[in-house]
């Protein structure tokens, strides 16, 4: 059994790959036939509402949770078969920044240095240099932002091929957030490392992400550069003096609002042909407005929360 594992190494270039991956908790579907392929290099942001299946996905990928069906690979290795040497190449930073509070910074650092074969002291020093953290301090004495920075420094010092960040800036103040992003974007220690960045903060995603992955109810809904996704969503404003069209027949509708008697439609994948639809519905004074990334993603994710009501 043990030796069979080495044959499970896949000869492809993806950092993360899943095939028809599913996970059910009792009757509830957490991951639904997920086919995901993440190419190496660059920063991939994963967005999804609470319960979209992100945490479940990470647990399966890191080998902490078995899938119900389907397959998953990380760094070319079957996730059911991860070895310590695979784990050495994966850095993981979560929102809690859980580190032993009673240990000093120096002691935690020494422990990690012993555990990771590829440990890079220059990488650690460079990243920790962004923060006011002294080696003699106990972890429990660090602020949340300092703990986040320390955690990031430890993860990058192991020279991971893949760095998974699960809501790393949650609860950080503006200054600490900025320091964290700066390290992630500009530190030499990140060079050549694939980053998976899980966050709800669209402002950060707009700054850092090369690629935007949107998950919803355990399924994949979008994989593209953020600006390409943003271009799929448009905000149309129209004055429809008579009967408004039934929301159910509005093509690509994500969100509809009536403000001061004027109709506002947020729509997906509709070209300028949407103006024809509006005109045919008796609209006049039609405008198409671009939307921010934040609006595009939130409109997309809230679609299934909206209950269509007849006019």
């Amino acid at each position, binding site marked *: 059994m043990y030796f069979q594992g080495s044959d499970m190494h896949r000869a492809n270039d993806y950092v993360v790959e899943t095939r028809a991956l599913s996970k059910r908790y009792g009757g509830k579907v957490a991951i639904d036939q997920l086919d995901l392929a993440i190419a190496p290099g660059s920063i991939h942001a994963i967005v999804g509402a609470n319960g979209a299946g992100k945490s479940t996905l990470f647990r399966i990928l890191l080998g902490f949770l078995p899938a119900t069906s389907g397959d998953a690979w990380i760094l070319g290795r079957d996730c059911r078969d991860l070895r310590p040497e695979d784990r050495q190449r994966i850095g993981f930073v979560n929102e809690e920044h859980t580190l032993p509070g009673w240990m000093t910074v120096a002691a935690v650092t020494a422990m990690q240095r012993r555990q990771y074969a590829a440990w890079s002291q220059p990488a650690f020093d460079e990243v920790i240099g962004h923060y006011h953290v002294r080696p003699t301090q106990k972890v429990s004495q660090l602020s949340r932002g300092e703990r986040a920075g320390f955690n990031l420094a430890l993860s990058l010092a192991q020279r991971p091929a893949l760095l998974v960040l699960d809501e790393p800036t949650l609860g950080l103040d503006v200054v600490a957030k900025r320091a964290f992003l700066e390290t992630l*974007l*500009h530190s030499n220690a990140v060079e050549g490392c694939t980053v998976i960045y899980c966050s709800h903060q669209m402002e950060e995603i707009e700054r850092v*992400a*090369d690629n935007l992955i949107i998950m919803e109810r355990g399924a994949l809904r979008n994989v593209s550069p953020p600006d390409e996704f943003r271009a799929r969503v448009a905000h149309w404003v129209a004055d429809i003096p008579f009967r408004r069209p039934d929301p159910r027949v509005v093509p690509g509708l994500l969100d509809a609002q009536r403000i001061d008697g004027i109709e506002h439609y947020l729509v997906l994948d509709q070209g300028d042909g949407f103006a024809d639809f509006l005109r045919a519905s008796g609209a006049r004074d039609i405008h198409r407005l671009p939307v921010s990334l934040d609006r595009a993603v939130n409109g997309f994710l809230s679609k299934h929360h909206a209950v269509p009501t007849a006019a």
Partner: protein
Amino acid sequence: MARTQALPIQIATGDSRPIGKQIVDAVRLRIATGELQPGAQLPTVRGLAQQLTVNPNTVAKAYAELTAEGWLESRQGLGLYVAPPRQRLSEDERDRRMDEAIQTFVHEVAALDYPPERAMGRLDKALAVLTRKSA
């Protein structure tokens, strides 16, 4: 060799323009107004990305667009520089933008309640700068 000129631009997240587009617009404006002179060196991709706290790939794409449009030119191994001016716009687009500029100007003048003759005199003087530049 020319020193890198500071590029005092700002970007905003949550804007309806992507960050890359905001960078392109800001650089174009600075070149068009002469704040960035031909031959001036731009910050490195890494430098500007750091200044704005954005992904370096975003800056690289914006620079590539500006280079393709002829606003910037790269000198092998040295970096990016503001290209010597040449006509970058179609005749129609040029007219459209001129109309826009005139409209803006006229509205401002109207708000000031400034006598048109005096406005013309001052405009003549201001435009003389451009004649000297293109000569």
